């Protein structure tokens, strides 16, 4: 009982997030990617998917994988407030993971985007889904974003024309490492969502079922010769 009481003191307050409805996207390859919210009990397969990339320096996979690993643990062990994790799965195999958290009902704090399957804009679709969740489902007016890699910079800061809030530091600051803070506002989102965000809802039950049990990838283009 004492342990439970102490644990409750360690846990952050929760806002109670609105569920994100699953959607499906037909990738250029013709493969169908189901994008859905992850369940806490799936953390094992998520961590197992992220872990091999911790040693990949190219394209800053190491930083993103390390940090996402920690954030997934924080989510699983109730050490991060209002975090959500979305996954893109093709026949159940994880193609990419994004995570984020709500600071309050009006502000989102984008955490990380990790693309496993490359060359099909999986990361772009998942990032858009993360923003969709914040603005369309959680009701945020703004989402703070930082980039940790040149790819992230091109995909988010440039392609979304994000507002540069770095001059407002330290009053305005992202939670990740003190990098320059950029912001997606509802107005910016409304301007780009038709060209950036897609997906079909509802997902037919038979397709949704393929993503019910998540599977760790057996191949990583980032790690030639990878064996699990």
């Amino acid at each position, binding site marked *: 009982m004492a342990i439970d009481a102490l644990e409750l003191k360690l846990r952050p307050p929760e806002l109670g997030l609105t569920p994100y409805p699953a959607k499906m996207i*037909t990738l*250029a*390859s013709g493969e169908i990617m189901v994008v859905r919210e992850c369940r806490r009990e799936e953390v094992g397969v998520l961590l197992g998917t992220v872990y091999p990339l911790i040693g990949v320096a190219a394209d800053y996979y190491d930083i993103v994988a390390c940090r996402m690993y920690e954030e997934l643990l924080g989510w699983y062990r109730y050490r991060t407030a209002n975090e959500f994790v979305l996954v893109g799965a093709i026949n159940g195999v994880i193609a990419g993971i994004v995570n984020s958290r709500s600071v309050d009902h009006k502000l989102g704090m984008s955490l990380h985007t990790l693309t496993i399957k490359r060359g099909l*804009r999986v990361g772009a679709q998942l990032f858009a889904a993360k923003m969709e969740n914040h603005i369309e489902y959680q009701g945020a007016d703004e989402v703070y974003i930082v980039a940790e890699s040149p790819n992230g910079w091109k995909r988010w800061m*440039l392609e979304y024309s994000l507002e540069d809030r770095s001059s407002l530091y330290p009053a305005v600051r992202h939670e990740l490492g003190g990098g320059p803070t950029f912001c997606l506002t509802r107005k910016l989102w409304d301007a780009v969502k038709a060209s950036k965000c*897609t997906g079909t809802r509802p997902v037919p039950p038979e397709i949704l079922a393929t993503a019910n049990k998540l599977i760790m990838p057996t191949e990583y283009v980032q790690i030639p010769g990878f064996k699990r």
Partner: protein
Amino acid sequence: MTARIGIVGIGHTRFGNSSEYDLADVMAYAATDALIDAGILEQRREVDQVFVANMASGLFCHQSSVASSMVSKLDMEPVPAELIENGPASGASAVKIAYMAIASGMVDVALVVGGEIMRKISGWEATDVVATMLHPEAEYAMGLTLPSFGGMFARLYMDKYGCTERDLALVAVKDHDNGALNQYAHVQGTCTIEAIADGETAGVVNNYIAEPLRIYSTCPVTDGAAALVLVNMDSPKAKLFKKKPVRIAGVGSATDTHCVHNRKDPLRLDAVRIAGEKAYRMAGLTPGDISFAELHDAFTILELAISEEIGLFERGKSYLAVRKGETTIKGRLPINPSGGLKSKGHPVGATGVSQVVELVRQLRGEAEEGRQVRDPKYGMSVNFGGFGNNVVAIICAKD
């Protein structure tokens, strides 16, 4: 008597991202591949002349004098080497100049290597570097890039002939089907028409780059190199080579106005037409003789337009042939069996050489299963520089 000049060695790197490597190393890799294929790696100093094609190593990777650098890496001194730059048509220009050198009698064996490392810088910066070939004041300073020219050209073509975005997507699907089977291709994955044109999510998955061109209408930014060994088939040195030469039957090139707006009709690619006519004339062939073609589809619209300019299809009708599947591997006239620039990639200085490597692979019957053209006799390549202002066409023959 016209010299009989043949290709006796081919080499190619896997196109893709080689940005962590030195350009001269990447070119040397392809050159070594070609020398091995020709069976003269140990006797490589029998090569009389090296021609290197590269468009912009200074801008892409802050490197110059790559021709002599590569020769040194190959331990081929004192074989002379020169660099040839003709925009994205540099590769085929180097083949043409090697042909001229051999035909002149100065050279019996030539090594031609084309290479480019474009991914040391971002894709946006690479697009800017490529745009430096446009007219500085009239085009580049106005913000024009090659994709924007491609977009305007595509819009004009679509409005005039009734071609649709879906037709452009069909070209991409066909090219990716071929490229997926090509061991050297950058993008070794297929795409489906449902996913990139017909489906509910296609508009975002296949996003616009320069409307009406989408990401699947446009070649990737690619690193890589390709190489050829050319020989005067009637010289004593021809005996060095074991493989039967693939003969270069025709070469043609032409120049069009630098500024696209100075052309009477922006949809007419006169340099392509003239280069093709010259190559046909030299080879004593007509478009009807061509078994397959490697065309410069930096944008899918260019595959259509070039195929018409060189007489493979009636003007404004090539997209109808694509709809009928006539340009697939099993079709009447396969186009871009390598996957083309769209799928194989477009390392600008390497592309023209890579196209000729593909002609040789097909004519030798060495293409991978599933993308080998059936019993080809003549293959034709068109390498397109600028927005059509420097063009080289080459016809190779299996004698």
